[in-house]
């Protein structure tokens, strides 16, 4: 239905001597939400970070919009139009909400800053209320909104979301997922979503992968996976 925006083939990543990714093949199509689910320690976040080149893949190729990025330094990859809201959010705690969003627009060199700021505030009105507050004092949910908002400020062509529901109360999780859905449907934003909260993620996704122990075991559309018993099994028994 659409073109491939990001494609990985045989991606292998190591932390020192420990192999975290054992040859991953995946595709992210333009305008779609692609999700990777799996248990703790399966290598999902490593995959996200490997796409951004930190750590760099030791083997395999990652092609973003026709450019081989697996050997590029992180900041250059990001300049191609990939933004990430990483695991643990990693907002800058000693900067204000506004300054965090400013940092997000680094790639864009603040050219469309005002315009984008309005958009982000419209998506997450809570952030506007707290724009002058230090990010470290925000609640978990607000920090997650900020992390996503900051990623959006770069005007990415591909948005990587790593566990946006992590550590949030269920009602906030719903809010965040609604926002992701809205971004995808209204703006046509391509999203690669990593989640442990498999059911939310699969309901949203056009395309989904299940990861176990650094390998992709099952592929399909979100709806397919949602109904496959082995997905549930993999989700239940994955990890260690």
């Amino acid at each position, binding site marked *: 239905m659409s073109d491939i925006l990001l494609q990985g083939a045989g991606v292998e990543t190591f*932390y*020192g001597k*420990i192999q*975290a990714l054992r040859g991953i093949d995946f595709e992210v199509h333009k305008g779609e939400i692609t999700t990777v689910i799996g*248990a*703790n*320690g399966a*290598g999902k*976040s*490593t995959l996200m970070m490997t796409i951004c080149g930190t*750590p760099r893949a030791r083997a395999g190729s990652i092609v973003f919009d026709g450019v081989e990025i697996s050997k590029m330094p992180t900041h250059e990859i990001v300049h191609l139009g990939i933004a990430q809201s990483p*695991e*643990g959010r990693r907002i800058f705690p000693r900067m204000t909400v506004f300054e965090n969003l400013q940092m997000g627009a680094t790639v864009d060199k603040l050219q469309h800053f005002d315009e984008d700021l309005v958009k982000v505030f419209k998506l997450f009105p809570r952030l506007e209320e707290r724009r002058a507050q230090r990010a470290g*004092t925000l*609640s*978990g*949910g607000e920090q997650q909104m900020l992390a996503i908002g900051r990623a959006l400020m770069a005007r990415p062509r591909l948005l990587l979301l790593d*566990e946006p529901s*992590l*550590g*949030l*109360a*269920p*009602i*906030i*999780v*719903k809010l965040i997922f609604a926002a992701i859905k809205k971004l995808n449907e209204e703006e046509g934003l391509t999203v690669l979503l990593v989640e*442990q*909260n*498999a*059911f*939310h993620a699969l309901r949203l996704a056009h395309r989904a992968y299940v990861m176990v122990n650094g390998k992709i075991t099952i592929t399909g559309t979100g709806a397919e996976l949602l109904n496959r018993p082995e997905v*549930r099994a993999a*989700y*239940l*028994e*994955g*990890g*260690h």
Partner: protein
Amino acid sequence: MQDWSKDPELRVQHLTMRFGGLTAIGDLSFDAGRKQITALIGPNGAGKTTVFNCITGFYKPTEGMINLRHADGTEFMLERMDDYIITQKAKVARTFQNIRLFSGMTLLENLMVAQHNMLMKASSYTIGGIFGSGKFKRAENEALERCKYWLNKVNLMDRADDPAGDLPYGAQRRLEIARAMCTGPRLLCLDEPAAGLNPRESDELNKLLLSIRDDHNMAILLIEHDMSVVMGISDHIVVLDYGRKIADGTPAQIKVDPAVIRAYLGVEEDEDPGENIVVAAAPAKVAKVSVPRVVVQKRVAKKPVVKKGGRK
């Protein structure tokens, strides 16, 4: 009044903790019953770990009282004591959200360090130890026996001489509990012991905690997000939100508490089996439930520890 308030092991009254302008805990009071498992739940940032840090003396609370009373009647005012004295005298032991083992030391050494105070005394504060006094040798053998007991208990006997850093994640969690138990505590504080465990492991954890409660007559205070653990084994649940208590009761009461549902669990949707808390809550069925369990929250706790450049 439920029975945990009659003769509580731990009584927290009007606890308040502020950092700069931020109130992490506001006027929190609750009791933890003797020989009971008390769970502290709530969204991230609700202040649960801060409560732990106040109880174990890592933070000095801004206001409030934390009283500990052992079965023999000895009482301690924890808010006035230094962290290590709390473990030493008041017999409170804890584990950490992000496991803090001595990763370069073997499992056995980890457990030996936990018995430091006892061994220190037996070695006449090192002097006797240097000359190899008999008293110290006996104490050391005793300590080794205790290590073996707990290593068996957490199923890690065969790895006793391996470095703790080499253990898989779930085993590290168990070892940390064993290490805390080696200090000979009366109250055990566990900060998310099930985080990052797979269902089989968290089932084992449940059994371990129940055994600690029943066989060792311990009071356990537990922070946990995994509802199968929380609902399965706790006698009493305290729910926090934004540093305040919003509910307090038995698991059955909490499940239906409207305030909890509003702030934490969210309104249930039919299409969403993942949030069907009632299914997961039935303790006996936990291991057999075929739908994925509720994992309302999980901590970041995975992958091999990678040393980060720069600071922090």
